[in-house]
């Protein structure tokens, strides 16, 4: 073991942890918004795929990373609008619609990818690392914290923005109330439906961004089903984080660590662990996380329940 766990190993693992946590951070903080407003969106896996594809396709054609991210957000928001239409306006079951969103996201992106890209086999240029002069060259910390691309640093921005919006703005205040006591919000003169749309749109936009990270910040290719369950893991992250954005950030990091360990240990054939055991780690840990949080006092009381006026 001594020759495996070196400082270099730790630094690489920490760096990879943050990188691999990034898509989960975006998706889970997005889901925090949605669930705080009482809307359970199990379709974020599909939304992430749409974001991943939209970002990839845009950068492929235009070469502009900024435009790519914008389209990823727009694609996510469009999915959110569809989800909101069915769950908030039509008041259909959120789980059924969420399942449909996953099928749609998976099918649509794979269809378009195979129609337009599969023969090209060409990737896109991923977001470059922002090497901070001085800091990036520091031993250990440089590798771990200061050689990432903008989307990884962006996770910090999203956490701060999420905390600010949820806890320091009138919008966030009302949003938190909508998932808990929609009738009180209604009586206070705010539209429950409007706030739920807002929350779902924010949630799906962020999920789209999280998806875009996979194609534009991590690998340079789109692969069918590239989110590989991250959307679902994000759902568990939210529960484990007790619906707090800061919590979601750190729990995502924890899952990032599982992903990173999995990759790092796979590169250590001396260990004789079948790589599938490591591959399964994030999924097993997700179940473990749900077992650990038996106490669900923070669950928004109206999660999953459509609001009917009167």
């Amino acid at each position, binding site marked *: 073991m001594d020759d495996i766990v070196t400082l270099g190993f730790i630094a690489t693992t920490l760096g990879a942890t943050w990188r691999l946590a990034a898509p989960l951070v975006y998706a889970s903080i997005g889901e925090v918004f949605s669930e705080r407003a009482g809307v359970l969106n199990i379709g974020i896996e599909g939304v992430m795929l749409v974001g991943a594809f939209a970002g990839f396709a845009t950068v492929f054609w235009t070469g502009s990373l900024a435009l790519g991210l914008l389209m990823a957000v727009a694609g996510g928001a469009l999915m959110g609008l569809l989800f909101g239409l069915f769950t908030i306006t039509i008041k259909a079951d959120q789980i059924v619609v969420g399942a449909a969103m996953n099928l749609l996201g998976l099918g649509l992106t794979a269809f378009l990818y195979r129609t337009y890209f599969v023969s090209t086999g060409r990737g896109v240029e991923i977001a470059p690392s922002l090497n901070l002069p001085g800091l990036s060259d520091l031993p250990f910390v440089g590798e771990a914290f200061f050689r990432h691309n903008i989307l990884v640093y962006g996770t910090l921005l999203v956490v701060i923005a999420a905390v600010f919006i949820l806890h320091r703005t009138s919008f966030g205040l009302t949003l938190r109330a909508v998932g*808990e006591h929609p009738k009180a919000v209604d009586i206070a003169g705010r539209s429950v439906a409007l706030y739920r749309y807002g929350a779902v749109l924010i949630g799906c936009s962020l999920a789209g961004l999280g998806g875009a990270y996979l194609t534009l910040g991590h690998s340079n290719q789109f692969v069918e089903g590239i989110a590989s369950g991250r959307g679902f893991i994000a759902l568990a992250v939210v529960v484990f984080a007790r619906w707090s954005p800061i919590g979601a950030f750190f729990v995502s990091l924890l899952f990032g660590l599982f992903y990173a360990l999995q990759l790092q240990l796979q590169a250590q054939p001396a260990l004789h662990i079948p790589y599938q055991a490591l591959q399964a780690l994030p999924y097993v840990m997700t179940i473990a996380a749900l077992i650990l949080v038996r106490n669900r006092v923070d669950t928004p009381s109206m999660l999953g329940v459509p609001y009917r006026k009167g």
Partner: protein
Amino acid sequence: MGATPFLRMENIHKRFGPVIASAGVNLEVEEKEIHALLGENGAGKSVLMNILCGVLSPTEGQIVFKGSPLRLGSPREAIRHRIGMVHQHFMVVPNLTVAENYVLGHGSPLRVIRDMKQVSTRIRELSHRYGLDVRPDARIHDLSVGEQQRVEILKVLYHGVDLLILDEPTAVLTPQEADRLLALLRDLVADGKTVIFISHKLDEVMRVSDRVSVMRDGKVVFTTRTAETNPRELARMMVGRDVLMDLPRAQTSPGRVVLAVENLSCNNELGLPAVRGVSFEVRQGEIVGVAGVSGNGQSELALALVGLLPAASGSIRLNGEEICGLTSSEINHRPLSHIPEDRHKMGIVLPLPLTENVILQRYDQAPFSSRGMLRFGEITEHTRDLIRRFKVKASHPGEAIQNLSGGNQQKLVVARELARNPDFLLINQLTRGIDIGATELVMQEVLKQKEKGKAILLISTELEELFAICDRILVMFEGQFLGEVPPDRARLEEIGLLMAGNREEAQRLHNRAGAIEA
């Protein structure tokens, strides 16, 4: 009464589909008075007040407030007109702090909340001024019900009101808290505010109000100065002079004890004591009534008797056998039937057909089930039989029960439970939300059961229902039985006083009546 009263509600009608909640209400409230609105459950008080504060809009009628017509589209508009309401079910959000609740819905949605310090300061000022202990940074879910109510009241005052409406504010308070609240209402009036106070507790109304209006069946039937009336008159007005019906009652002499409850206590869903050591017996051939304002532990008592809520202590014997601690499934196999309080939540399964509602507890028992399979021939035959005997209006046994009217649903539930031929019948709210015809029918059927020698416990918030069929009435208040009264309409006020927790006054009244008789 002045030419232009502070508030006048004229000919207010409100219908919810076929249900009439307000049937032409007229109400006048003067400035700087405490106006009590008295009535039984379902008399239409809350609906009227929800109209006044903009939550509901009337089907017909108009409101004149401070001399000009008032048309409200939303509760926000009501607040703009300085009308505020403290709802029976609190409208404070549990996961927010007190101060956050106060800014909820105010100002631009996109604004950054920067003024929480000022909000907190103002809350402290107000809380000091009215002697309401409210901490601005406390989270609502950490507060007791009484504290939450103070938060709710102060919230309305915070936004500024001239007219304050309180819907059954004392229903959730301890007597001490209630006293403090009533004192506060006096202070508010001294401060220039007008208060409408919904209640069905006579003693409170007598103590605190300047004037009182009594509602019954969606109408205001009586308005007077409180000083010019007495609890007896109010009780009569509240229940209605006209006797609902006179059902012929066979005198049966109670037989052996069927249900014996000793020192039963249990907690409600929140873990708070709801039933505090009650003991009673129900014998063959008698109907024992349990009267009381809702929320005094009756629901928990009923659930505990049938094993749906664990008892904290005490014993329940059915035919001498201890059934306390048995599961609901085991109790279902005993000769006991239960007509539950909330029909839609518990008593029936709305989307299922009548046939499948009739077998709810007996789905795995003969004759409805044999070797694991449902016997639809038997079930349909049985359903048809119940439909015929109880005159349930349904097009066929396979119709979904949600298509039936409330009265017909209840007839079917009663029919189902009586058909189980129980020794002990537990009824919680026999006639809630059903029409006169159905009421009469189910009451007669229950009386027939009594003649057959069944033991029956009838829990009801409708005194008239209890008077009509009970042999004796236990009055429940805050989880305990305060007294036992015969179903004698002459002793209505005494029951009313007991329901309001006023044992001494009831006792005095009883002694006086006894003295006159003697």
